[in-house]
């Protein structure tokens, strides 16, 4: 009884907070100071058509390095926790029923297309919405489809680790090159900026975002592979 009363009180308090926010809300007529800076300077300074990507990779590149590190730590911890019950070799467990014809054929058809879409999303991150994180998640969903079709399939952890660490090193290396050749860490102007809206423009942004995409995809894939390997404990 008291618990229910407490819940009602809590909901009432939340409603008060949110209605206060709603009542005091007035939409901005003009962009605020930092937003206006980004909107005016992105095209000429960075050369990226997608302002969000310019902010994520260049203006706030250090934060992105932090995000990627957090994701790496998560993948490492998942691997550490789940590596105990791992079973070596395939087919050692109980017999699984074969995947349906629909899933098998659909996987064969869709996996190359999904991989292509993921690569498209992160290569074009500086032109269209999307980028490394989204593209990496799409790549990992292709791996997920493969694992759904054949849960006993083993994906080489050595390959995933190699992709992941190479991409991380290249990301930090390009960032350090920015200190030497341009204005600071992760400055994208180590390569010519080019003309706005072309694939090879915006300096190092397409390269950095491609490697972020590979890194994120490898991290998600390693998590999925670990989960799938310990599924039949």
């Amino acid at each position, binding site marked *: 009884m008291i618990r229910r009363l407490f819940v009602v009180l809590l909901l009432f308090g939340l409603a008060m907070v949110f209605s206060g926010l709603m009542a005091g809300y007035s939409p901005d007529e003009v962009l605020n100071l930092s937003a206006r800076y980004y909107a005016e300077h992105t095209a000429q300074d960075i050369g990226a058509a*997608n302002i*969000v*990507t310019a902010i994520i990779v260049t203006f706030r590149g250090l934060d992105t390095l932090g995000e990627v590190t957090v994701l790496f730590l998560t993948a490492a911890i998942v691997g550490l926790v789940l590596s105990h019950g791992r079973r070596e070799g395939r087919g050692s467990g109980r017999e699984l029923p074969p995947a349906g014809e629909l899933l098998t054929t659909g996987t064969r058809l869709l996996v190359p297309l999904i991989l292509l879409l993921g690569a498209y*999303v992160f290569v074009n991150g500086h032109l269209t*919405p*999307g*980028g490394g*994180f*989204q593209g990496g*998640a*799409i790549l*990992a*969903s292709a791996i*997920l489809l493969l694992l*759904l079709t054949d849960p006993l399939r083993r994906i080489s952890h050595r390959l995933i680790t190699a992709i992941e660490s190479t991409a991380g090193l290249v990301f930090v290396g390009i960032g350090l090159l920015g200190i030497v050749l341009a204005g600071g860490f992760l400055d994208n102007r180590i390569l010519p900026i080019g003309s706005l809206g072309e694939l090879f423009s915006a300096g190092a942004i397409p390269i950095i975002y491609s490697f972020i995409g590979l890194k994120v995809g490898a991290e*998600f894939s390693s*998590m*999925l592979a670990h*989960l*799938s390997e*310990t*599924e*039949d*404990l």
Partner: protein
Amino acid sequence: MTLLIAMSLLLSITIVAAALLAIRGSQSLAISILAAGLVSLLASVQFLLLAAPDVAMTEAAIGSGLTTFLFFFVLGRVRGGEHD
């Protein structure tokens, strides 16, 4: 403009309904997981209506795609443990 607002309102109501379906744990957990995935999917449409396509893509790929299947993986493992 009014059409946009009407669509957002309809979406919000559907999101709340799906969230209620997800937290009512009395029925099967699979339905809860699917409803949670539906919340993410509709939220990504809401982000798209609010002119944030980058966030919408992240929400659709991670929140609605990977997380839902992650929950199903874990659910399968937990169910397997019950029989041992």
